[in-house]
């Protein structure tokens, strides 16, 4: 703002000046303007008077008239003791940071790592021996006492369930669905005996590399019946893992689960009920409801039923996404007490109307907004980035020069910050979806729901990618002109990475880029720009793009 520029700074700048939030250079410019401009000085005094009124309001109204605490304030001593006790009871790894300085930390971590390796080696051996020994005994028991006629429940990943009656002298099974049969054959697993110890033992023995786990579990149909659970993971082959549950009392197999490399699975469970024909085999195949209510998800959500499920929550989140209510509006979705609650404070009346129109009448969904009179007004655009801290003046002056003057810099800055604002809204939304449906919960979703969830996340990833491209096309040439060097993207994802983790990393990368941009453009006072800020910004952008690519690739699986 030289003597040639007579534009008044405006309320926003004046308020930021009063609040000490203006970069040093800009603050100097505004102060110089104020010395010369009566109108702005009067404006500033009026703002100061309003600030003083706020202070009076806080003191007289909020402190004076809000109810006092209902009980006398208790000293925190007892609470301190509670926190100390909780921290003392926490696992060692949680307590370590407060126990020791950095070097002791290092020693402790090394020692722990050594112990861990030793434990893994030891544990790696013990379950293998246990598993082999248990299977040996189970095969012997099965040879001594052939399995009686029994009913077996079969559950597939698709949700289909069947019952077979098997056993007797022949011990025959009905043929499995052809694709499952083929998968068993490809995995070199005897499909004629999927609930038998012998087939499991043969398959396990044929594996060149495997990991065993042996635990004690209760039987699926009888919680009072203890069982051994043997789980063997194969390093390669069609079958990723097989889990067999053997009754402790007689080592009879009661359940087996097969997880294939393509994430398909099938489960066989012995059903505790008398078979329909005592001497028969392979006599009945019926399709019916799942044996155990373990999958709360359902494809046809938002249809009447007694209580809401995680699937309903997903439907609501998706519907809100369609009207853009997941981007910056303070609309909360929670699954509590059997219903999906959509709530929010300070949501604009228009948005409230849209949400009501969308969700009123949906079963098990409650829409409840508070403070309906309040109107949320989102800023039309972020305050233009102007000026910079003393230490950052250099880079911003160079930017101005490169862009062709102050006005061009302002336009550039607004353009980039607008892009960043839009990108951040999708980064927040993506993280919110990932947090709401963590990997553990996602497993319990039905296949169509999972597709829908991935589509929702992909929408945010794609929108974020678009904004990053917009920012990149503006920033890359300018940063290169400032000496910034492009860097390669971060490394590829681990094979077992989850998209939720990638979404969290992407959010962090977005935040990192936002911070660097705010320093570069002089939005955040008090933060000094390092000499390689242009390179850092390019690197942050590359990291963000790599994170987005990881999300895309994991969501496509």
């Amino acid at each position, binding site marked *: 703002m030289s003597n040639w520029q007579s534009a008044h700074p405006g*309320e926003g700048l004046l308020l930021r000046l009063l609040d000490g*939030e203006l970069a040093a250079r800009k603050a100097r410019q505004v102060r110089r303007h104020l010395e010369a401009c009566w109108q702005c000085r009067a404006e500033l005094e009026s703002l100061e008077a309003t600030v003083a009124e706020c202070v009076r309001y806080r003191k007289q109204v909020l402190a004076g008239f809000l109810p006092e605490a209902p009980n006398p304030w208790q000293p925190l001593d007892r609470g301190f003791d509670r*926190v100390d006790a909780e921290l003392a009871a926490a696992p060692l790894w949680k307590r370590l940071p407060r126990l020791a300085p950095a070097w002791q930390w290092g020693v402790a971590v090394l020692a722990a790592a050594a112990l861990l390796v030793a434990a893994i080696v030891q544990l790696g051996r013990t379950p293998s021996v246990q598993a082999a020994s248990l299977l040996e005994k189970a095969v012997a028991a099965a040879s001594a006492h052939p399995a009686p006629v029994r009913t077996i429940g079969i559950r597939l990943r698709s949700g289909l369930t069947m019952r077979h009656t098997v056993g007797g002298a022949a011990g025959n099974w009905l043929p499995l669905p052809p694709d499952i049969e083929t998968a068993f054959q490809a995995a070199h697993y005897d499909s004629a005996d999927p609930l038998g110890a012998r087939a499991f033992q043969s398959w396990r023995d044929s594996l060149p590399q495997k990991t065993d786990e042996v635990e004690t579990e209760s039987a699926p149909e009888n919680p009072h019946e203890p069982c051994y659970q043997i789980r063997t993971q194969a390093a390669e082959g069609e079958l990723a893992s097989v889990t067999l549950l053997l009754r402790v009392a007689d080592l009879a197999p009661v359940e087996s689960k097969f997880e294939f490399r393509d994430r398909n699975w099938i489960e066989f469970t012995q059903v505790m009920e008398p078979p329909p024909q005592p001497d028969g085999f392979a006599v009945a195949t019926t399709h019916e409801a799942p044996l155990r209510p373990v999958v709360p998800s359902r494809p046809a959500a938002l249809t009447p039923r007694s209580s809401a499920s995680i699937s309903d929550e997903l439907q609501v989140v998706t519907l809100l996404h369609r009207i853009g209510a997941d981007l910056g509006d303070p609309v909360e979705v929670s699954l509590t007490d059997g219903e999906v609650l959509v709530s929010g404070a300070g949501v604009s009346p228009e948005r409230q109307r849209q949400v009501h129109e969308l969700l009123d009448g949906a079963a098990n969904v409650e829409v409840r907004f508070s403070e309906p009179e309040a109107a*949320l007004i989102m*800023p039309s655009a972020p305050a233009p980035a102007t000026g910079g801290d003393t230490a950052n003046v250099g880079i911003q002056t160079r930017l101005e020069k490169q862009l062709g003057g102050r006005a061009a810099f302002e336009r550039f800055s607004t353009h980039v910050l607008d892009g960043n604002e839009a990108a951040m809204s999708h980064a927040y939304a993506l993280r919110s979806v990932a947090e709401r449906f963590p990997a553990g919960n996602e497993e319990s979703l039905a296949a169509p729901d999972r597709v829908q969830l991935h589509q929702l996340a992909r929408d945010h990833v794609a929108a974020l990618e678009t904004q990053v491209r917009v920012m990149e096309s503006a920033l890359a040439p300018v940063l290169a002109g400032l000496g910034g060097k492009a860097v390669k993207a971060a490394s590829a994802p681990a094979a077992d990475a989850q998209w939720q983790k990638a979404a969290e990393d992407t959010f962090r990368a977005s935040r990192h880029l936002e911070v660097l941009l705010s320093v570069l453009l002089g939005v955040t006072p008090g933060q000094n720009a390092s000499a390689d800020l242009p390179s850092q910004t390019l690197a942050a952008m590359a990291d963000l793009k790599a994170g987005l690519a990881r999300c895309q690739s994991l969501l496509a699986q």
Partner: protein
Amino acid sequence: MAAFYMSEELVGILRQEGAASALQTQVAQLFEESREDVYRYLMTLGLTPSRAQDATQEVFLRLYAALKHGEEIENPRGWVFRVAHNWGLKVRARHASENPFDADLEATLATPAHDAEYDLLERERMLHFHRAVEALSEQQKRCLFLRMEGLRYPEIAATLGISASAVGEFLRRAMARLKKVRDE
């Protein structure tokens, strides 16, 4: 030699205990200074007085736990308000079936008998101002209340999950509205 090691160990324990006690003193002091502010802020979020009081106590204990765990906190007061805000929203969500607490300050302010010493004109002025504050959007109000408690823009931004520039914009709109009301 054994005695030497023993005394070293003892010194270590005493140091640790001394540090813990110093930490407790610091947190207790901040609690003493700021608890009423945090308590009031939680009521403006719609928490009932008893829940706001419990939450206030809990927030300061969390500060103690975080510090004891080795977390570096540059501005403990800002941290306390950020945690109080999030904690308050969780408490509100947990009791979403209840109406948010409303102190009905307007009615209190409009009752002259409430405080005879309170100047009538001043009361009128504050009532007018209070109505203007109440008419602000929720985000503007949050930014304003947190700013009143001394939080800087980046701290408010971190509390509300928005950018610092958005905080500046919300505050500008709030102040423009309040200035207009004050000047009327």
